[in-house]
């Protein structure tokens, strides 16, 4: 087992939290996102999308963090984290998907603006090695996101906060009465909202504190800082 990951990557943090919950200790390959190591030819041979995390197991590569979480739970079901009944599992999967489509892309854009992200000259040439969609996104970042995109991204995060608060109205955890992959998929992203000056509803703040208290989260808390780096592509059509 080998995990390619990076400090400052919320998607990587989610995987490390599950590994911690399950007591699994894969070999770790740490990438330096500030040094754009994820765009190096050596890493692009591992993941042509130039992104972390990637989990390797039995010689096979497993991508896409929320699906890595499910893979880990399918393969190492103890303790179970997918949810205790079909409804919880539906909610956990719904959140796993929502992070990718509605939270992470917008958080990355808001973060890039808040941290005054810049692509260093040394990293510019490397962008042309990326797949077309990744290259396009990085070129937009380099150019700087316009006011309209920033407003849309900030609004998307407010909308996400409202949905989080609505699902938390039923209990302590996002998907019902137990801690699940849904909490883990969302947490590392939502934990950055406050630091970026985005207001967080009280129910969400209290939930963040509950998740933060778990030993698996404590163990990786040094990885949770915001970093000016791109996330998934924002939706192109609805």
């Amino acid at each position: 087992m080998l995990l390619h990951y990076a400090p400052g990557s919320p998607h990587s943090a989610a995987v490390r939290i599950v590994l911690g919950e399950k007591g699994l200790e894969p070999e770790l390959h740490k990438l330096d996102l500030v040094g754009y190591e994820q765009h190096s030819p050596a890493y692009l041979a591992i993941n042509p999308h130039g992104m972390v995390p990637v989990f390797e197991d039995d010689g096979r590569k497993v991508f896409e963090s929320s699906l890595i979480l499910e893979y880990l739970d399918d393969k190492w079901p103890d303790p179970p984290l997918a949810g205790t009944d079909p409804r919880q599992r539906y909610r956990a999967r719904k959140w796993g998907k929502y992070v990718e489509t509605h939270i992470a892309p917008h958080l990355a854009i808001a973060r890039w603006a808040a941290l005054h992200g810049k692509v260093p000259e040394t990293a510019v040439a490397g962008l042309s090695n990326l797949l077309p969609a990744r290259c396009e996104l990085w070129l937009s970042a380099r150019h700087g996101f316009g006011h309209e995109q920033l407003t849309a991204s900030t609004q998307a995060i407010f909308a996400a906060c409202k949905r989080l608060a609505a699902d938390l109205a039923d209990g302590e955890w996002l998907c019902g009465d137990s801690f699940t992959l849904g909490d883990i998929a969302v947490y590392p992203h939502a934990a950055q909202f406050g630091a970026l000056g985005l207001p967080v509803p009280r129910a969400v703040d209290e939930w963040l504190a509950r998740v933060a208290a778990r030993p698996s989260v404590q163990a990786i808390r040094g990885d949770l800082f915001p970093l000016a780096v791109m996330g998934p592509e924002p939706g192109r059509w609805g």
Partner: protein
Amino acid sequence: MLDVYTWEPNANSGKPLFCLHEKAVPFTYHYIDMGAHEHHGAEFLAINPDGTIPAIVHDGFTMTESTPAMEYIDEAFDGPSLRPAEPYHRWRMRMLLRYMDNVVAPALAMIASNRLAAPRFIGQDADELRAMLERIPLPERRATWEKLMFQATAPADLAESERRVGDAIRRFDGILGRREWIAGDSFSLADIGVFATFYSLPTAREEQVNDAATPHLMRWLRTCHARPALQAALRMGKGFIAQRAAEIREKLGVAGAAAAA
């Protein structure tokens, strides 16, 4: 009690219908006419405030994400299992569903709606169109409808979508050259997810999807179109889909071609 609120059996709308037919689970089908914008009307918004279809309500539990809802259906009801048991194969099923949902289906939707829906708005009263936009709850959906209504989709975006669709067709043809089904050696939710948007390609994209260019994809499309459960789901459509599916079966030489005619 199981209620499915959705439109024609295709794309996201079709996913729960195909899935329920494959498992032979009884349900009540509530037809939401997307062409008439019923999904933005008060009655449907009371069920799904986001105004997207499908919505699936099982004993009071409402689901509006079609891919997670398919896994729910597979877990909560009897019938043949539609997910591989082996963790890596199951991951592969989810990964390809994610690729369809986030990359391929939006690209196809952008192209199809620009071709089919956008022309209907030409010459319509701009204030009336604005009033329709106001009723759309999700900002990202509102933005796409605004582009359709005012013919504002960038040509570069359409070209990029074409590139993605072409890429996906080649990729799935490659996958199906290596294995029988999309995720492995058995029919799974990944087959349903791909079929829901690819079922019509042999006629809709005849020049790209045919026996010479994509033999493996064609082999798989024939097998899927021959499945009685998928045929039955396609026949539930009230609009053009049932007829279109019958024409595709005919073209593919698959039994059941005349069933909907």
